[in-house]
């Protein structure tokens, strides 16, 4: 059993209480819904895309502290990135929270997102941390169908 404080790091708690970019950007032109049918977490991610680049990103919805903080910090890390860069970041984030052998926050582009490394010790919470990212991916693909954590 790892320490609870590894999971509920101060910055995560802070983001969960005051999520950033909790809004629909005025210029949003792509969006997707994501939900976790196992726990009821439900988010919409909005993108303002300029060609292949993310000009602005926001989210709305409800969920646990981990999923809210993850969504909030995700939006902060995405502005100005291209679609390919965003997808690469998701891959690194996914490796981090699932504790993929060899994955390390140090040699990645994760930056502040590395605070989610504690999630890998809590397999039941991986879906909480990754819900917003799956939803982002769906929004990037312009998918009309809500994405769920049970399809991935």
């Amino acid at each position: 059993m790892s320490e609870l404080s590894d999971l509920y790091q101060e910055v995560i708690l802070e983001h969960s209480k005051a999520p950033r970019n909790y809004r629909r950007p005025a210029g949003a032109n792509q969006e997707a819904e994501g939900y976790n049918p196992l726990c009821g977490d439900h988010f919409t991610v909005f993108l303002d895309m300029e060609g292949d680049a993310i000009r602005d990103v926001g989210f709305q919805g409800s969920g646990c502290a981990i999923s809210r903080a993850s969504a909030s910090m995700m939006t902060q890390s995405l502005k100005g990135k291209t679609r390919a860069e965003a997808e690469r970041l998701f891959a690194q984030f996914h490796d981090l929270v699932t504790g993929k052998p060899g994955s390390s926050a140090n040699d990645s582009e994760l930056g502040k997102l590395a605070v989610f490394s504690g999630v890998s010790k809590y397999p039941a919470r991986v879906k909480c941390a990754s819900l917003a990212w799956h939803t982002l991916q769906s929004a990037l693909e312009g998918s009309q169908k809500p994405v769920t954590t049970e399809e991935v």
Partner: protein
Amino acid sequence: MTTVADRSHVGLQAFALPAAEALDIAAIRAEFPILSREVNGRKLVYLDNGATSQKPRAVIRALSRYYEEENANIHRGVHLLSVEATEAHDSARRAAQRFLNAARESEIVFVRGTTEAINLVAQTCGRARVAEGDEVLITAMEHHSNIVPWQMLCEEKGAHLRVAPINDRGELLMDEFQKLVGPRTRFVAVTHVSNALGTVNPVKEIVAIAHGRGVPVLVDGAQAAPHLAVDVQDLDCDFYAFSGHKVYGPTGIGVLYGKYALLDAMPPYQGGGDMISSVTFEKTTFKKPPSKFEAGTPHIAGAIGLGAALDYLTALGIDRVAAHEHDLLDYATGRIGSIRGVRLIGTAAHRAGVLSFIHEDVHPHDLGTILDSEGIAVRAGHHCAQPVMERFSIPATARASFAVYNTREEIDVLVRGIEKAEKVFGR
């Protein structure tokens, strides 16, 4: 919530049993080996009994004994082991008959669990009764397992699923229910005890109303069988379903009770061995109930384990178990309900086994993780009852659910766990 707390403490006195009749909870706990294990360095406090209960030695031993001494297929061998296995299996059916006070042993059909029982009834009796434009009536507090099979049937037949509403306490609105039993109603399916709210429904009254219109009633007893005495003849219900693993038995085994005349008239569910009288390529004749509904080699060990569990529960005395659990529920309602920031979900006058709640500062999922770090197992989520969550405009709840081996001290540990979660979230 202070008033609730105060009231419940008064209520506890009224519920205290004379010492001679009270259960020896310490002795009962000693019969459940898993309760002595540690979780995350703490003594396990298992309060997720609504999901599945732990198993007493009597059940574990019955399973081992079957596999170590009696294992053979049933109803087909002339050799000794097969005879013994058949006897053990049949004796489990009689245990289920006694447990439900069914009139006949042949009214007990072994199934995988409550879900399969409901699907069986929907796909046989339901399919035969329900036609285009007809209605199936359920309630707003059903588990998904008592919604989806009926929804599938209605879809197939072009029938309508009607839902009787509940009030803010989580009680069925009987006047509305009565109005919804109409000329096109072909089936009523209702839970005995709500898994998400703990509400005990007035099943006898529901059955009387439905029968007044000639409508059969299926009762989902998954959350009732562990917590209160069930008498299917007194309830007069047509079908009653429950799962073995929630009444201290194994997973993968459950019971469907059905009135014999109905079972006899129903088409079979699955075809195969053990459910036939004779087979030619032209025609098969089916056995009588319950065999007609038990195609293939059954879960013999599971049935034997379930029989042991029901005998165990019966020996404790289901009324004494119910009184103990009622005391726990009252105590927990008082303690948890009086925490500032907690809202109880499901405050019906008659409840059993389950306390659902939300905290304004801590999401149920986070609460579940933090409680786990203290060795406390609760359920966090929608409890396979999404429409109930929608009714209360919440995404999820935390749920503590009780069994005979739980204690007031464990509820105190739960309260301290909730306080720890509040600290983590900086309250």
